[in-house]
């Protein structure tokens, strides 16, 4: 006599459920990935000329000023490249107009800028930067996050002595113990002058990536701890 088995205790039912759930979740992930990849494509010179904001902008941003400002429309801070302008829907966006010298030039071609950040990214990987620092918040927690390092107030204070913060950053990278700012020093990793410039270019480029407001309030507040100083 066949016993009636509840579907809830049927291995076949659960096997099928598991297969379907996994399949649907995977398909959704793949579809979302197509959309994300399209939105995360690196920008071009054309985008900048047409003032089109890209989540990951063209490396040409190294020719422009970069700020990190609160956008009332999106409700968090966004990178502002080359000065700000009003967005049609409200809030602010990048104007891509205000230039600034980067290692003495503000006329890098797209090819030159791409070559610089290519070298910079390779160096960042070759020196294992992410095993001490975080980049976009990912990595190790032994040294400061580098997502917005280009905008860090520390470099503004060092800039005058070096004729520009990019020179200060490049000098630091080539011999970090000499310019140590804390007892937890960065070691000398044999970074050449060419590599140092490329890494600084990468840091400037990375600070222009739209990170949905991370880190919050960057460089804006001086907390109660500092108030005593």
């Amino acid at each position: 006599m066949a016993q009636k088995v509840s579907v809830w205790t049927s291995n076949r039912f659960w096997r099928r459920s598991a297969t379907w759930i996994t399949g649907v979740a995977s398909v959704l992930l793949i579809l979302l990935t197509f959309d994300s990849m399209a939105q995360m494509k690196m920008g071009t010179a054309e985008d900048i000329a047409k003032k089109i904001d890209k989540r990951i902008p063209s490396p040409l941003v190294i020719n422009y000023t970069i700020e990190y400002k609160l956008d009332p429309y999106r409700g968090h801070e966004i990178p502002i490249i080359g000065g700000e302008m009003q967005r049609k829907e409200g809030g602010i966006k990048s104007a891509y107009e205000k230039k600034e010298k980067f290692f003495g030039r503000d006329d890098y071609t797209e090819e030159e800028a791409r070559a610089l950040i290519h070298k910079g990214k390779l160096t960042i990987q070759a020196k294992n930067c992410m095993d001490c620092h975080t980049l976009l918040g990912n990595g190790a927690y032994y040294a400061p996050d580098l997502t917005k390092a280009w905008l860090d107030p520390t470099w503004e204070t060092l800039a005058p002595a070096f004729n520009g913060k990019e020179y200060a950053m490049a000098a630091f990278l080539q011999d970090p113990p000499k310019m140590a700012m804390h007892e937890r020093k960065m070691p000398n990793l044999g970074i050449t002058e060419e590599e140092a410039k490329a890494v600084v270019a990468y840091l400037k480029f990375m600070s222009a990536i739209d990170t949905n407001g991370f880190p919050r309030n960057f460089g804006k507040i001086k907390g109660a701890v500092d108030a005593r100083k």
Partner: protein
Amino acid sequence: MQGNKLYQSQELAIKYFTVAIILFGAQLLFGLVAAIQYLYPDFLFNTLDFSIARMLHINALVVWLLYAMIGAVYWLLPDEAGIEVVGIKLANIAFYILTAAVAVVVLVYLFVQVGPGKESTIWFITEGREYIEAPRWADIGIVAVVLVFLYNVYATVMRGRQTGILTVLMADLIALAGLYLAGMFYTDNIAVDQYWWWWVVHLWVEATWEVYVAAVGGYILIKTLNANRKVVEMWLWIEVAMMFGSGILGLGHHYFWIGTPEYWWEIGALFSALEPVPLIGLFVHVLYDWGKERGKGNEIKNVPAFAWLTVETFGNFLGAGVWGFMHTLPQINLYTHGTQWPAAHGHLAFYGAYVAIMISAMYIAVQGKAGLERLKMTKAGWWAISLISVGVLLMTVSLTVAAYTQTMVERGMHGATWEGYFAAQSNMWFLQGIGWRLVTGLAVIVGYGFLVYDLITCPKHQPVEEGETAAAAA
């Protein structure tokens, strides 16, 4: 199991386990160096800098877990399928190739450390991408070895008995291996780089590895408690549904701040918040089966393996589930991302979810090799499980204190600048947390000593119970 006579595949499993436990020791050693450097930054400065110690710490972890995972499959495969593993000679050769490659990679990490900013460094020294730093040549080698492993599994199951546990493993292992390919390319776009990097890291540890654990955990339940296979396999399918159902789209919680579209906030928050649910299921299942078998008067056939499995289920739920949930919502993660929070979560999660079950599997192999009907807990085994578990739990609590401080001081009060970072790092609470982390780490290392001793000697040092001596005398 068949007394002292093992399948060749199980002999190979023991080789994998041996390398795994040695690399576990290396992981702890480099972790110790890194923990000391947090307190005394000059320790081994310019010799074995933090970046190198930390890279070896996490790479040794990943590699030893993979060794143990492969080992556990070679152990249970012939047992489940009922036949010797197909292509076992090839499997043995693959083991030696993999081990030689790992040795070369480690020596290069230790003595070359970094390279110039060129493609050749990515190919031969380091890829510089957290957890998967292995240079490209090694990636290709790993893929070749894994293909041999997959051939062994598939060919064996095709010819032998096809159980539910093996079906899940077959599907899971191919996904696990395939995902590694997502980490094998270079791009200048760091956002895209991290997007695919998470495919490997997240879809391993929060999806395919979890399903692997559920499958191997099911096997261990059958071995230690004689649990009903039909019930175990039903649970396993429910676990697969819940783990993949939450874990695959839970990937979104890594896509909040890396240049990704905003919709990942909602998707990541919802699905990753569900990730703890299957982990509750795991420990409920284990305790339920334990109680049921005890009620029938059945004894546990391998006490250390069962004890480690129990630690796994609770550690997985606490470390991966609770500690993960604490900072998974974007509103909170905005402030905790990139602080000691993930470090606190990571330590208990890796330990709870993966380390404990791999040790459990090793005890199953110890019992099988010795041919013992029952394996009891020795004193050394008790010290090992207690010191390591309490040590890692308290280490996590210490790191959590440091994490709270860092989030509050650096992120909340100072707006995440360089100055704010160091203000947090020199804060008294932070330093105390980091100090206790070192102390608890030492406890784990002592526990590791007991563990190695016990794995080697426990069959010979089985405690004799009162009833048994009386029976022997009579």
